[in-house]
């Protein structure tokens, strides 16, 4: 297990260097150089421009600039925002918990709802429930979630007035950020009703962001369960006289979970992409919202650093999925 762990970790280093290389190249494709972009339409004298370019190292050969960039990244220095002048790293850390909170809630929602639905559909294969669920699942996977979110707001927030339209908590509360997770921070605050407010702000974004993962989890659980339910050991378990519930949940589901775990891990990309859209719609102050704003402000250091951090996160999560896979299925450790 330890060697498997080491080898998997060693493999991510070249990927990480590749990702930094790509984020370096992409930003250098921006028309005009960063200094000119920073001064924008106000313009700048050519001498001053040359001076600033030299100070920023932009007159050095590209490979030197790349090495310098790698060095910065290795020291957790991702530059600073052109608009706020805060370090990119620090801004990311402030906003990141909001995205994690939303994503975790969305994936939990997808698992809690999707897993039982998939199991029931597999057990009742060919029933109207099965067909209905599979129809809904392919619809969910085809959902333009930016529209879905707006429809939810239109129906539940504007029409029925059940949930708030945007943000993480009502303006009536000031919650000192401690963990950065609004639900937890609100729980430990003394304000009555803060938890309820935070929770009601979470409901719609969670459902919207969780829709595609939910569809995928339900579908994958069903097909994986169908495969396992046809195996000999299930027949043996039934023949031993075990209860149907025990056969399905203890024997079948446990074995069916491996592909489901992989699929849940693969949802991280979908979640991070979806978070950009969901956060934009619900004005959720997270990383996705921040990245879209950086584009509108032409804040390239934020865009570059933020993209790099999100990609790094995806690498780490993929590693986590691989390791979980190794724990669940000892055969692939070798």
């Amino acid at each position, binding site marked *: 297990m330890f060697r498997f762990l080491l080898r998997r970790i060693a493999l991510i280093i070249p990927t990480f260097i590749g*990702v930094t290389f790509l984020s370096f190249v992409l930003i250098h494709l921006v028309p005009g150089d960063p200094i000119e972009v920073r001064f924008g339409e106000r313009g700048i004298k050519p001498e001053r421009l040359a001076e600033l370019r030299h100070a920023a190292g932009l007159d050095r050969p590209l490979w030197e600039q790349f090495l310098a960039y790698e060095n910065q990244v290795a020291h957790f220095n991702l530059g600073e925002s052109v608009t706020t002048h805060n370090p990119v790293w620090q801004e990311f850390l402030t906003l990141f918990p909001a995205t994690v909170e939303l994503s975790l809630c969305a994936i939990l929602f997808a698992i809690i709802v999707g897993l039982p639905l998939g199991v029931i559909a597999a057990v009742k294969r060919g029933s109207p429930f099965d067909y209905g669920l599979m129809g809904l699942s392919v619809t969910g996977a*085809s959902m*333009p979630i930016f*529209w879905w979110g707006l*429809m939810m707001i*239109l129906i539940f927030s504007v029409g029925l007035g059940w949930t708030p339209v945007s943000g993480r908590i009502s303006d009536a509360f000031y919650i000192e950020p401690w963990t950065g997770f609004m639900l937890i921070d609100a729980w430990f605050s003394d304000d009555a009703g803060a938890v309820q407010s935070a929770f009601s702000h979470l409901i719609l974004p969670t459902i919207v962001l969780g829709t595609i993962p939910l569809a995928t989890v339900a579908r994958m659980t069903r097909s994986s369960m169908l495969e396992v339910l046809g195996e000999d050991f299930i027949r043996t378990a039934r023949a031993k006289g075990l209860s149907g519930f025990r056969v399905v949940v203890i024997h079948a589901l446990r074995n069916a979970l491996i592909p489901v775990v992989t699929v849940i891990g693969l949802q991280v990309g979908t979640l991070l*992409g979806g978070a950009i859209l969901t956060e934009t719609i619900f004005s959720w102050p997270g990383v996705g919202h921040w990245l*879209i704003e950086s584009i509108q402000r032409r804040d390239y250091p934020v865009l570059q650093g933020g993209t790099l951090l999100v990609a790094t996160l995806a690498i780490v999560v993929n590693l986590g999925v691989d390791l979980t896979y190794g724990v669940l299925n000892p055969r692939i450790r070798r």
Partner: protein
Amino acid sequence: MSASTDTAVAVPSALRLFWRSFAENRGAVVGLAIMLLLIVVAALADVTAPHSPIEQFRDHFLTPPSWSPGGTSAFLLGTDDVGRDIFARLIYGARLSLVIGLSVVALSLGAGTVLGLTTAFAGGIVDTVIMRLMDILLVFPSLLLAIVIVAILGPSLTNAMIAVAIVALPNYTRLARASALSEMSRDYVTASRSAGASTLRLMFSAVLPNCTAPLIVQASLGFSSAILDAAALGFLGLGAQPPTPEWGTMLAGALQYYQRAWWVLTFPGVSILVTVLAFNLFGDGLRDALDPKLKR
């Protein structure tokens, strides 16, 4: 694979066999029907659309759909904030979406196939470099990468299509490479090679035709994600620019007043959903019919 008909027992043609297995999947047939309908409506947009998609009717701002109070039969699905007919915009939007899907798939499928075959045949350093690059592209959440590419190239429909095509590229490259590698060890390739066929001929005349099934399936499913991603970019203001009647761009334009006018929000979204759903259903059916190995 032409079936011989001069044997005693009539052998059904390949196409008929394919259709029989495709039609088993009712969802796929529904998907195909919707696709065909969309294609006809979009191709004949000049005839089927009651108005021009950009004509502004100054007396009809935010007119509700014809069946609700205040609606008129002149505007079936109502009008938007500057008096443009939503139905007409949706029809022209369908044309645009199909063009987007087609261009993106053609671009990523074409480039991906060439790259995949090249890596499979070249092996060594070329293989390693290209495939590692694809792995790196796959690390990024696809929508994020597309957003970054458009942010750099500048927002426009063409750039959005290029971005979506680049994001889809690794899937096609990996698929083409994997199928080419499994075909290359077959006897017919060895035979062809020993008969003196050039590498290019081997790649495109011998191996490629036998790798098409998974690529076609991926392309049909890629069509729907291309439409979805392009609409998402349009919604974020990074794709087609107003007044282009692109569905995602229409939704972005509706953001300021959708709470007062549900129809400006509902219909473009339903159009995206139905189109993407149709292509997904069709793609699933195609996969089951063409590639039984992948059947789930």
